């Protein structure tokens, strides 16, 4: 019954979204009415309404696009590795999708209603160009929905042999439909940022070719950036789900399972985060090349302080991600030997955050400005430029990877004869990478900007190559390694779970902030230098009001996600009933921290 309700809700959401699109498309494409509709709800104007609807639609969409990507990988690990616990985990991830999917559709429908009623002329303009792609979008949405239903509800029916492979292929299809859907929607929004060359305010929308409109300068960078970011976001939200379930669990078995799930979610999020700056760099470069004005507005002008806020958020991500790993080492026998290194890694991270958070132009009063001889600090200004910040972030990525490596190796002793040489090689790779990063960071101060921009590519490549090289050695070296003891899953202090929750909230806030940056750099244009915003909101909001709207979005999102988490708990309540009964019958609910618990069996989950 519950499943039927979930399926019904999702179907209704999809139908609602399709209906909204079907009604809005033909009617409003020809609407000759006013340019803007009236809206005022609790002080929220039309732009605020569209902003919130679009942001919430995007957050849920990112989740439902990100989770299937790693769910299908985890299913494959279970299928080809023969370990059923991975299969069960993949299914548990997928369960979260069902309600989130309908929420995506509902917010999408609200967004379409808002756009078509509050911005009728602009919506008519967009539909005049993109209508065919909108129909394809709606069709793919149907395909994606029903593939998701087949994927989830067919999980147990198609569990063995060839049927399992077919089921796995359904997961792949789900990803393909979702990715195309996202690519299409990205075409619409990137057109607003970077319309094709040659378009002017006088160009009739009917004369704009559909493919040239979609395949604009920032389309593919946004596609790649969002693909990666969706994985990061999906991992963080399932990590938060696991943390919630961990904190509300009543049995050791339940705690062990959700501890493992939280670790997996965090690993996915942080792993994908490491490559995200590459995609972000490409996007930023394309924006700059498309329009110098847009690029400077984003990086050096009006929005330059937004990057200080971003630096803080990224700092929180790095610190919380590492903290979770360090605290998790407390439940791994043998991790004690790595404890002395933690303070030095933390020092690198704290110095990295300090460098990244150092503003180029400082908030200062008149006396402070007079003392500095300007708005830049004579000494700290060396930390305010990209050379310093790129160096800092690359060293932070290396440090995070080192934390992960220690965590991975904590309870293992390699038995291969070349273990010592391999470890030294890994150390040399780390050192070499750090030297490359610092060298190009320092050298960047002595070359022109155009040369310096290229240095960041060398820095990131050095770090990524080190990660691949070191992990390759590690995998070979730990084959058949001697174990110092099983990981005591579930033996985590509660504060570790708050780190997972903080990660999810920070990622969500960060997505809101970066969305504001991407959209805000158009300034007073609906379509940059083609369709001017003539409403009373034809200005870019300052950071304060923008932060308020972003926070509202984050609160609504986590309110709804909290409901989804609660539903997820309802669905699994019976699973742990037996174990809970044992606890109530007199067993200890939480074993002492030193008492080992086997790895989660998950035999009866779901």
């Amino acid at each position, binding site marked *: 019954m519950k499943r039927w309700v979930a399926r019904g809700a999702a179907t209704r959401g999809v139908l609602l979204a399709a209906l909204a699109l079907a009604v809005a498309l033909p009617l409003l494409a020809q609407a000759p009415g006013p340019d803007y509709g009236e809206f005022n709800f609790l002080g929220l104007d039309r732009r605020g309404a569209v902003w919130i609807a679009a942001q919430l639609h995007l957050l849920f969409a990112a989740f439902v696009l990100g989770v299937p990507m790693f769910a299908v990988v985890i299913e494959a690990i279970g299928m080809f590795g023969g370990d059923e616990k991975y299969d069960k985990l993949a299914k548990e991830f997928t369960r979260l999708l069902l309600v989130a999917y309908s929420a995506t559709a509902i917010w999408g429908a609200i967004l379409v209603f808002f756009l078509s009623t509050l911005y009728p002329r602009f919506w008519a303009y967009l539909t005049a160009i993109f209508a065919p792609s909108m129909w394809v979008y709606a069709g793919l949405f149907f395909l994606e929905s029903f593939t998701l239903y087949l994927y989830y509800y067919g999980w147990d029916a198609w569990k063995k042999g060839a049927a399992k492979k077919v089921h796995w292929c359904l997961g792949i299809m789900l990803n393909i439909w979702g990715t195309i859907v996202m690519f299409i929607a990205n075409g619409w929004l990137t057109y607003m940022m970077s319309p094709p060359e040659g378009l002017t305010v006088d160009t009739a929308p009917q004369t704009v070719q559909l493919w040239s409109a979609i395949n604009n300068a920032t389309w593919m960078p946004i596609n790649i950036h969002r693909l990666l970011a969706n994985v990061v976001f999906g991992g963080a939200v399932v990590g938060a789900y696991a943390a919630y379930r961990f904190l509300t669990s009543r049995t050791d078995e339940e705690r062990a399972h959700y501890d493992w799930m939280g670790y997996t979610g965090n690993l996915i999020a942080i792993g994908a985060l490491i490559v995200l700056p590459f995609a972000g760099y490409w996007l930023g470069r394309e924006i700059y090349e498309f329009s110098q004005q847009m690029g400077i507005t984003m990086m050096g002008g009006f929005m330059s302080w937004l990057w200080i806020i971003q630096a803080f958020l990224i700092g929180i991500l790095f*610190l919380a991600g590492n903290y979770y790993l*360090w605290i998790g080492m407390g439940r791994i026998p043998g991790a004690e030997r790595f404890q002395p290194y933690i303070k030095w890694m933390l020092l690198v991270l704290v110095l990295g955050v*300090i460098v990244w958070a150092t503003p180029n132009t400082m*908030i200062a009063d008149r006396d402070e400005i007079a003392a500095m001889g300007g708005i830049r600090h004579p000494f700290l200004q060396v930390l305010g430029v990209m050379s310093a910040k790129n160096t800092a972030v690359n060293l932070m990525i290396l440090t995070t990877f080192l934390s992960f490596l220690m965590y991975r190796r904590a309870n293992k002793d390699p038995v291969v004869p070349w273990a010592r040489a391999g470890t030294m090689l890994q150390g040399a790779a780390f050192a070499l990478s750090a030297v490359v990063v610092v060298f190009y960071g320092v050298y960047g101060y002595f070359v*022109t900007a155009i040369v310096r921009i290229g240095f960041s590519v060398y820095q990131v490549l050095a770090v990524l190559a080190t990660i691949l090289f070191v992990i390759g050695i590690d995998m070979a070296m730990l084959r058949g390694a001697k174990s110092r003891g099983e990981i005591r899953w579930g033996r985590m202090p509660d504060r570790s779970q708050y780190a997972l929750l903080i990660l999810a909230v920070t990622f969500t806030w960060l997505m809101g902030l970066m969305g504001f940056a991407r959209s805000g750099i158009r300034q007073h244009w609906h379509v940059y230098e083609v369709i001017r915003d003539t409403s009373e909101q034809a200005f870019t909001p300052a950071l304060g009001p923008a932060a308020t709207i972003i926070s509202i979005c984050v609160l609504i999102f986590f309110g709804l996600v909290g409901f989804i988490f609660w539903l997820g708990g309802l669905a699994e309540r019976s699973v742990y009933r037996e174990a809970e009964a044992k606890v109530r019958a007199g067993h200890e609910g939480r074993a002492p921290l030193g008492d080992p618990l086997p790895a989660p069996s998950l035999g009866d989950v779901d």
Partner: protein
Amino acid sequence: MKRYLSHPFWQGAIVVVASYVAFEYVIGYALPVIGVASAPVPSSVILEYMLIVLVGILLYMSADEERWQRFREPIRATMVRRDRRTLRGILMVAIPVVIGWLAYERVKPSYAAPATLRAVHPAPPNQLTFRGETIELTGLENPLHEEGSMAEHLAAGKRIYVRNCVPCHGDLLDGQGHYAPAFNPVPADFTSSGNLPQLTESYVFWRIVKGGPGLPREGTPWDSAMPAWEQVLEQNDIWAVILYLYDQTGFTPRTWEEEGEGGHE
């Protein structure tokens, strides 16, 4: 003493104090003494740094269960132990008083201009007008590189700079001209690595042509005293003074991406 130094709580306290001393006094006052260019760090930045340090200390202390227990022990003891009643009483009065004083310091009326955040290099327009003539800024190069004698251009630039720019930007090009102390914001320091090397010559051209009155919306507050020099100087005068600025400071202007590297405009 050794007992205190090995205790996590006091280690944390020492790091907090040492960090504050480093940010406030070492950077602000000790570095200039040994000849390194520096100045007191603005309070907004000190606050940022100290928050980061504090978070780092708390993370370190709580990353290990045993260390966390030891870190919390003196706090807990002060809050509950009978023999610490005097200290507890002092803290219960002192903490609200300090918080109240900090709150008062923040909200008390002041005649000082509020701390401001200006976009020092606001985004330029794609095109500008010079006495009615439209000039495309994107991709614009200094025409004097291709014509005439560079020595003559530099001599002309020097002459124009001394006649028009020295009173504010100074004879050392460091923004310390005779009028500079009267201005807020202070005139641009051309010797700073944060100015000329970050900008294309076309950007500098735009700023000289349009000055403070031509700052875009994001350049608020519009209180720059820089005149719009298009009413006084010819285009080539401005290009010449730009050549002079880069020549004197030794900086290289930012350049446009080569065509074929994906340049859109």
